């Protein structure tokens, strides 16, 4: 028992220690980078051990601090959190490799600040993953927002500042305006804010209170980018690509969506919600977000802007799946977090390597780039297949379960949304793949640039291969997700 708590503490301390280590060794560049890589490796090692324990069935706990009678910082690893922690820790390693290549390739300034904030962001993501009650989740959620703010305003230019202001403005105001009151109200209603399987709210509370609470939570978590609260995501595109990779695939949006899934499963419990909520507004909101974000992505010419809007629509997939309230669809939601993480990070790595090699950002300029950068565009193609959800990639897995959930609940709206959005996804991803491989360079001249630096290409290929490997050998994540759903039914 003792080792579990030690492991949890380790999992939280390694990134923070890494941040301090980086701060200390800021003048010696190589030492700093090896420090980051080393700490990400041992984080993976710790998380791997935790994974074995969780797979064995028990859920290690850790009480850290009790600062109010009803409130305490308390960690408990349940399967969903474990899955999220594995994604975050693994992708931290990949992202550090990539950003070393990127930073060297573009010789960006403030590199130390970038790595420090990156490590702190990972620490808060692990905190969110392992949180056992709403307060701990809220604390690390705020820490994540504050630690990623310097990353968004990395360049320090005027529009970076504006983007940073929009980013912080929306995230902080939604979290304080909706999330905090919601937490307090739950603690008033249910006495405590612990995540317990089967939910802590019960049936005889009047139904519209529970409905309003659900809406407060879903809009309180600004990071899940539901439609009106999505403005910060495209605005954060001004940051360098490893940051947007972190933002979009590893930490920030994942934390948002992860907390919504966790709250729906462990605070409200789908069974309760199913019978209480008659008009499923969350489902329709998520559906609208998917469609509108995809339509906007269709016309976005800037590559990163298009990827940003595709993230918004993919996130609402997860919310849609959770809002279906069927156990199978919640499995689908958890798997979609996994599939989307790997798929989207590859897409951003590809965008980054295109920018590093050719300084091009618009989709229309990408004609014929596939011949010159085969590895990058190959990975991009695989990742976009995963986004569309075509079989050989992991995207298909989660879509399969979400659809099963949709059918078990007979929700025709969700099914039509999934069908339309698959087409829209194809609509805005395939032109890029086509332009890269099948179009001759528009201005006719021979493309004189070459493939991106090795570190970036290596990270790129690893994640793209993983999307396929996840499809072929999905045992571990599947087992985790089954345990999540198992103890819920």
């Amino acid at each position, binding site marked *: 028992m003792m080792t579990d708590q030690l492991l949890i503490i380790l999992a939280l301390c390694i990134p923070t220690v890494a941040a301090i280590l980086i701060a200390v060794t800021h003048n010696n560049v190589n030492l700093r980078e090896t420090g980051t890589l080393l700490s990400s490796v041992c984080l993976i090692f710790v998380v791997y051990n935790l994974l074995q324990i969780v797979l064995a069935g028990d859920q290690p706990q850790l009480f850290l601090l009790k600062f109010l009678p009803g409130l305490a910082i308390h960690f408990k690893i349940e399967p969903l959190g474990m899955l999220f922690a594995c994604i975050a820790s693994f992708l931290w390693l990949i992202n550090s490799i990539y950003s070393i290549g990127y930073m060297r390739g573009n010789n960006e300034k403030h590199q130390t600040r970038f790595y420090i904030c990156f490590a702190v962001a990972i620490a808060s993501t692990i905190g969110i993953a392992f949180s056992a009650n709403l307060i701990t989740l809220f604390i690390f959620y705020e820490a994540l927002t504050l630690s990623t703010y310097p990353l968004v305003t990395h360049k320090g230019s005027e529009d970076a500042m504006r983007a940073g202001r929009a980013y912080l403005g929306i995230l902080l105001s939604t979290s304080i305006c909706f999330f905090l009151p919601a937490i307090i109200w739950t603690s008033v209603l249910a006495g405590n804010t612990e995540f317990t399987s089967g939910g802590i709210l019960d049936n005889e509370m009047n139904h519209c209170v529970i409905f309003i609470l659900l809406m407060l939570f879903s809009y309180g978590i600004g990071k899940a980018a539901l439609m009106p609260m999505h403005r910060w995501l495209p605005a954060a595109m001004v940051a360098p690509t490893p940051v947007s990779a972190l933002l979009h695939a590893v930490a920030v949006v994942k934390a948002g969506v992860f907390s919504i899934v966790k709250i729906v499963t462990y605070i409200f419990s789908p069974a309760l919600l199913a019978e209480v909520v008659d008009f499923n507004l969350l489902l329709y909101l998520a559906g609208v977000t998917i469609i509108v974000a995809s339509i906007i992505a269709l016309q976005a010419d800037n590559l990163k802007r298009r990827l940003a809007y595709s993230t918004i629509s993919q996130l609402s997939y997860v919310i849609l799946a959770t809002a279906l309230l069927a156990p199978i669809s919640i499995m689908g939601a958890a798997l979609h977090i996994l599939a989307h993480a790997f798929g989207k990070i590859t897409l951003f790595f590809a965008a980054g390597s295109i920018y590093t090699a050719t300084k091009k950002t618009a989709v229309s300029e990408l004609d014929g780039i596939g011949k010159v950068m085969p590895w990058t565009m190959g990975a991009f193609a695989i990742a976009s297949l995963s986004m569309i959800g075509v079989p050989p990639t992991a995207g*298909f897995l989660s879509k399969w379960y979400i659809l099963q959930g949709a*059918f078990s609940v007979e929700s025709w709206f969700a099914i039509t949304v999934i069908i339309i959005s698959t087409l829209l996804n194809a609509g805005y991803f395939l032109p890029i793949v086509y332009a890269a491989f099948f179009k001759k360079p528009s201005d006719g001249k021979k493309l004189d640039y070459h493939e991106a630096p090795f570190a970036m290409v290596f990270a790129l290929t690893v994640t793209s291969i993983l999307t396929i490997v996840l499809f072929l050998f999905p045992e571990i994540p*599947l087992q985790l997700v089954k345990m999540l759903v198992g103890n819920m039914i």
Partner: protein
Amino acid sequence: MTCSLFHPGLLLILSGLIIPFLQGTRRTLFVLLIPCVALISIWNMSFGTACSIQYLDYELTLINLDALSRIFITVFAITVFTGSLFCCKQAKSKELAAAFVYAGGAMSVVLAGDLLSLFIFWELMALASTLIIWSVQTEYSWRAGMRYIVIHLLGGVILMCGISAYVNETGSILFTAMQPNSIGTWLILCGFLLNAGAPPLTAWLADAYPEASFSGTVFLSAFTTKTAVYVLLRGFPGTELLVYIGLFMIFYGIIYALLENDMRRILAYSIINQVGFMVVGIGIGTEMALNGAAAHAFTHIIYKALLLMSAGSVLYMTGKRKCTDLGGLIQSMPVTAVCGIIGALAISSFPLTSGFVSKSMVTQASVDEHLLWVWLLLQAASAGVFLHAGIKFPWFVFFQKDSGLRPDEPPINMQMAMIFFAAVCILIGIFPDFLYGMLPYEVNYVPYTAAHTLTQLQLLLFSGLAFFVLLPLMKRTLTISLDFDWFYRKLAKMISIFILTSLCNFQSKLSKKVSALKPGYYIDGILNIRFSLAMGMGLIMIVFIISLSYFLF
């Protein structure tokens, strides 16, 4: 992985991935060898299920061989062999690789024993066929390919919904015959029909196939529609609705082919027409009908490939596609012309050709079932086929007026491929037992009875008479005919433009109105006035009086 390595589908897919790394003769040899290996491996593989994998807590059976799937696999293997023979020297390696993956996907779909693996290879087929269309790298092929992939993804998603609903209801994933009674099976049926080119989304076939390269269309015509026929044969034999869908497809194909000007679009419409026959066969559902459908699929792949090869070589040599600027090529391309004519006769099921052997089984099945109206329509249709494909295609391409073009014969490997397939058509026409041996159900049908041949001859010759009599009516015009795709090409564009324009000018009006109000100015104005001491005092008194009155009254 308990499956024997020789899963032909996976073999082809792997070889497809290897092709880009080979050049010249090594590629030609490799490309010709693989289909033969696949054919041999299928023939010495015993019936029954093999190669099952445990995945996502389901039991996937990758190989489920029986007579029905074996006949399809054989015909697929033969087509891949001849197709690659046809274009091994001329085609880009990108297209050839995509074609092999495409064929491998088709084979794996045919072999698949359960719905999930069927769906996985189904999507793989859609992707590979899009790559074939795109590999010709023209602007038209880009747009047609995009429409093609979107439609097929739509079909794929509908199929996926159907499968997940079906699995949800019945719990089993095995691919067995089912009745379209529950929502799941209905969606699966729609998914299959969409790939078979059934209404309403029939336009993708005639829109995408002609845009592929001269050799690409040969491959395209062989696999997508035929796998759809196979899955319908196995999944939904005897569903009454299919008869009417089949009949609609038949007459749709004839009418649009008659109007069409581009020669390869005529052949594309005739694909829909022929698939219509098979669908009618499946719809009738008796053993004879199913045999007929399978046989017809077999023979159709061969003579359609033959026709498309001849059209392809005409395109390859002259670079022209429209009938208006073709004609009189017989003088300089006799071999292609002869093969084209043999193909045309086969498609119109002229006695002594393979078409006659297979199509008559379907009509015979309708007779056995006493479906008078269906029989009448089928007879009219076979007359119509001779009209639009049997005579129209060879006449307008090879005879008609002399367009002055004197292209010489296509390269030798293309000719060999065409001659081989022409020979096969004639052979099956003469010795039907070779084909009947392979059919799934026991066959006791004798095609060559005097009465039957005579009535067939009368039917065809008189429709030929009608063609020549009405020749001036059928003058070719430089036009295309609208189809269902008008909806998602023109109408959708108009609607989206309308929505976007109304959205942005609504927004601009709104922002103008809001800025006119200048809200910020007023609030700042009020709050920033300097409170002098006197006003402070005044305020205190006002507050005092308010609270006093608030209390006392």
